[in-house]
Structure formats: structure tokens, C-alpha cells
């Protein structure tokens, strides 16, 4: 989901005085294709990759993911510190953190299942149940709220035809309200999966939703061809 074929009027890349492309603003060219095995161990706890399609049955952890997990273990003085990076990795693969996932992670790191549950449920980014392919998080905190964040939230609910926090009927969208995303100068700030959409007004909401639908259709068509 790296390239958006349109820029919204207030896109941080083309507001102001900077004549930059979206790739330049986001640093996509600079970052390049990050290795799925995590690259250098120093950055293995960060996200090298965001998968479009999650697999709730993916195993923990195999192949390049195992490599990444093992690199993570080398970065901290004790094993427990790998817990949050490991949960992040599991969510990246599976799309959400189920109680079963929590128990598997507990086993991998050598912590009690109850403890891992208490930690996993503390953090808001762990989806406790499946979410749509596109998780739309609309900031309604103060700076965005002053500039219409609540209306943008309503517009997303309307155009994805879903209730707050529920998966839409077509199975691809979940919209939730988010707390400040540290993009307050670009209100309303919306995070969709790993990407920020900035300066979103209600007029852009249908465009964004249609765009997401179109890339979803493209990806399911190519999957059918392959299958």
C-alpha cells in the first residue's frame, strides 16, 4: 500500500512550500525494500515489513521470521524484553493477537501465559480480535478534533458502511477512533494499516475508501489467477 495515485489537497507533501513527491516525504526510496529477515540485528525489533494479507494460522516463527525473532533475542540483556517485539511480529503475521497466540509466545519466551496476557492486553495496538484488511484509525484528539476529526470519523463509518470497531460487511474495513497520532499539524490524521493519511477532510474520505477497495480487488484478482 505504498503508492497512492492521488494526493489529497492537504497532503503533507504538497502543502506548504515543499515541492516533494509522496515517496520523498515518506522516505520510501531511501528505505528501499527492507529484508523480511529483519536486516541488521540492531533494527530487528522494528518493523521491516507490513504484510497486506494476514494469515491467522501462520506459525510462530518460521523461515525469515524465525531469523528475525532470533536476532531480536540478541539485542537485550534478558529474554523477557523480547516479549513486545515478539508480539508485534506475531500481529504482523496473524493480524491479531488471540489468547492462543499469547500462550504460544509465552512458551517461546519462557514466561507464564497469564503474565503474557496481562502484558498483551495493556497495549492498544494489539488487536484482540480479527479486524478488516484495512484498519482505519481516525484521530479525534484535540488538534484534529478542532479541525473536524469527529466528522471524518463519521464519514469513514458511513462510506465503509460499518459500525465503530466492527468489520464491514464486505470484510475489508474496520474503523476505530484513535488517540493523538503525533500528526497534529496535519489534521485530521488517519492511520490506515502502517500508513498515515494526513490533512484528511470529509471530502477525501470517499476517495480514500474507493482507492482501498480498488487495490483490494486487484490483489484478490491476482490471487485467483495464481490459485
Amino acid at each position, binding site marked *: 500500500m505504498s503508492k497512492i495515485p492521488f494526493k489529497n489537497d492537504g497532503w*503533507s507533501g504538497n*502543502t*506548504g*512550500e*515543499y515541492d*516533494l513527491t509522496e515517496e*520523498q516525504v*515518506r*522516505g520510501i*526510496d*531511501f*528505505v*528501499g525494500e*527492507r529484508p523480511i529477515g529483519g*536486516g*541488521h540485528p*540492531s*533494527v530487528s*525489533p*522494528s*518493523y*521491516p515489513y*507490513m504484510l497486506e494479507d494476514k494469515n491467522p494460522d501462520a506459525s510462530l516463527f518460521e523461515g525469515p521470521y524465525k531469523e528475525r525473532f532470533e536476532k531480536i533475542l540478541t*539485542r*537485550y*540483556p*534478558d529474554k*523477557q*524484553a523480547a*516479549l*513486545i*517485539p515478539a*508480539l*508485534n511480529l506475531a500481529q504482523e503475521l496473524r493480524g491479531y493477537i488471540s489468547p492462543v497466540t499469547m500462550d504460544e509466545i509465552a512458551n517461546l*519466551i519462557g*514466561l507464564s501465559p497469564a503474565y503474557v496476557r*496481562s*502484558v498483551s492486553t*495493556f*497495549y*492498544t*495496538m*494489539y488487536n484482540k480480535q480479527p479486524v478488516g484488511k484495512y484498519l482505519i484509525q481516525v484521530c*479525534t*484528539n*484535540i*488538534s484534529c*478534533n*478542532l*479541525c473536524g476529526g469527529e466528522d471524518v470519523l463519521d464519514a469513514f463509518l458511513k462510506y465503509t458502511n460499518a459500525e465503530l470497531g466492527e468489520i464491514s460487511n464486505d470484510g475489508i474495513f474496520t474503523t476505530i477512533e484513535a*488517540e*493523538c497520532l*503525533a500528526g*497534529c*499539524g*496535519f*489534521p485530521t490524521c488517519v*492511520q490506515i494499516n502502517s*500508513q*498515515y493519511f494526513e490533512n484528511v477532510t470529509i471530502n477525501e474520505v470517499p476517495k480514500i475508501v474507493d482507492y482501498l477497495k480498488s487495490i483490494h480487488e486487484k490483489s484478490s484478482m491476482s490471487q485467483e489467477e495464481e490459485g
Partner: protein
Amino acid sequence: MGYPYSHDQEVPIISKYLGDPEARTLEGWKARGGYQALEKALEISPEDVIEIVKDSGLRGRGGAGFPTGLKWSFMPKDKSRPHYLLCNADESEPGTFKDRELIRWVPHLLIEGCLIGAYAIGADHVYIYCRGEFFEATQVLARAVEDAYSAGFIGNNVMGSGKNIDLTVHVGAGAYICGEETGLMNSLEGRRGEPRVKPPFPAAVGAFGMPTTINNVETLCAVPPIVKNGGEWYRQWGTEKSPGTKLFCVSGHVNKPGNYELPLGFPLHKLIYEIAGGIPGDRSLKAVIPGGSSVPILSAQECENCELSYEGVEEAGSMLGCASVIVMDESTDIVHQVMRMAAFYAHESCGQCTPCREGTSWVTQILKRIEDGRGTEEDLTTLIDLTDQMVGTTICVLSDSVAAPVQSSIVKFKDEYVAMVRRGEKLGIT
């Protein structure tokens, strides 16, 4: 230069290369004078580095404004145990959006600041704790860290100095409270991000039980230019008590929201009307939150002569915090915005302390009730009493952060609360 707008009154020290994609790359960074400060630092003793930072008067940019050089000097000299430097990149204070810009535009400046900091305090390992939502910024940082490792700026024998400094990018998972320094330490260790009771202070018992210093992204970014040019140089800007420059995050009802780097002590009024382009539609100013949502609200009148330094904002009746200036014009529904802020704190309270856990949600409920037109004037007294009990009674200051906007808004915008209550009474709801 600020991003996405700049202004010729800015003093671009740390923000000079915001909006310049080439500054992200190692080559581009070196061409812009990058890593010269690190080289200089490694040539002098750690004590001398601390001395320079002390001389500069740099104060922590994460909110509390604690003098950075002094904080560094608290670290024990005995190196028999590992020491850590944590960089706080959990930026989640509503209204604050400077650290994300610094990370995504000048990642090498941050890395350089971290390395100088680590050298000064004798840390073997730096952890940059990025908030989980920063996927893009974290990837930019990750790439820069890899490049800096391969160029020999991080790792074994940093720039041939014989020092070994490791640096790890760690990603959180969404929780405002992990920005509190001891909450961040717990989170880094794989625990719930609950703040710890102090003392012991982090310099004695910090991350993994070891001596630790924690600094904000912007603080560490200010270190390389200071080390390169000297403490006196930094003092040419700002005031006696608040030296140097600061990124001001201007958001809300202004024509040109964004980050602007200005000398501390800059007039608030000028920031809104000259730098940030004034208020859209020439509407009038109603209120400003000068330091992120945790500080008291200033009325338009209090903004008139407010000077944006740590002491200046305090004099005006609020706090500079992280200089996140949230501007509200006459169209603003103060009660609704205060309710939204209270709801944020209720959501983010870690729940360890009763006054905070209960207080934040009671305050939110009472404010919702007032907004719905079911409030009474007595509720306003209750809110004041309730928030009084939330100040200074808890492990961390999140609890106090709710009291600030609630109490200040009731005092300064009482009319609006009363009107809301009366409207309900008129409609016969209560």
C-alpha cells in the same frame, strides 16, 4: 526551517534539513557536516562533553525541562555495571508532532546525538523507543542506523576511539503512559508500561536494573550542534533560564500549522499571528494550550503578553511542556474539547493509582453529563474538588495532567459551562 512551512524569523539549528530528503542518507548527512560533532566529542573526555552541555543550559524537551547536562552528571562513574541511554520517541502528548518529523527527516542527527550522549554518560547500549504507530518514521530510522553501523559510527570501536556503543531501535505497541520515563523502562523490559515509584531514580536503578539516562528525541538532536559550536554559542538565543532554540508545534485553528524552530522566549502572540499565519477567516482567538494537552489553558487575554520560555509561560499561568501550541478560535466548544482531553486521560491511565484510575473516568463522565445538558452548577464544584484530589497524590503526573485543563477551563470559561448547564435546565432535562 520548519515543516511544512518556514518563516524567516526562524533560527534553524536542528530543523535546518527538515524537508530535505538527501539529508536522510549517510552521504548527504556527512556532506552537511554530519558526524563532525561526534568526532569532536570522542576527542575530549566524557566529563568535558557534559561540561559543554551544562554550559549551554540545554533543558529537556520531553516536557519537564530538566537541565540535560545536570541529568547526565548524575550517572555513576563506576563502570563495573552496564549503563544505558534511552531515547524517548514515544511522542504521544496530544498536540505534539516534532519528534516524528525529526526522526523521518534527520535520522542521523538523532543517531549522532544518541552516540554523544552515550559516550558522555558511559553507556554501552542506546535504545531508541519509538511509539508503535511510527511505522514509516521507524523504517527511515532503521535504514539510517544500519548505514551508520556499516560506516563504523555505531558498534565496536566507534570512529576508531576504542569505545563500543550499540544502538537498538525498539518499537512499542501503543500506550501514552510508556512516554513516562519509568513506564518506558518497564515497557522496554517486556512488562506493562506502568510507571515506577521514585526513588530509586533511573540514574541509580533504571532499565534492566542498571544506571540509565532517558532523554527526548529533540533534546538529543540539540546535542551535536552544541558540542560542535560550544555552550556559549547556544546561549546567544533564548533567555537566561531557557537558553537556545525550540521546535514549536503549532496546531488547531491557524492558517499554517506545523513545526517552527524559534528562540525560546519568542512572543506567543507573534507565533500565532506572524509565524503561523493567523487564524482562518479572521476569527478571534479564544484560548491557547501552550504546551500540549497536559497543561493549563490560557485565555486570549493571557496570551497577549505571554513569552514562550519555561519561566515566561509559567508566569502567564501555564507551562511550556513540549511547546505544543494548540490554538482555539471563537468557534471552539471549550467544554467539549476539555471532555475529549479528559476522555483521553481516562483511556490512558495505567490504573495503578486510585485517584487517577477513578478520577479520570469520573471527570469524563461528569463532563459528558454537562455536555448532554444534564449537568448542574454543583457539578462544577465537584469537578474542582475531585481534580484537587488528583494532584500530587499519585505515582506519576498523568493524574495532574487532567486537573490542569479541567480546573483552568472552569475558572477561565465558567460562562460556557454555566450556559451548558442552564440550557439543559431550560429544556427541562435535569
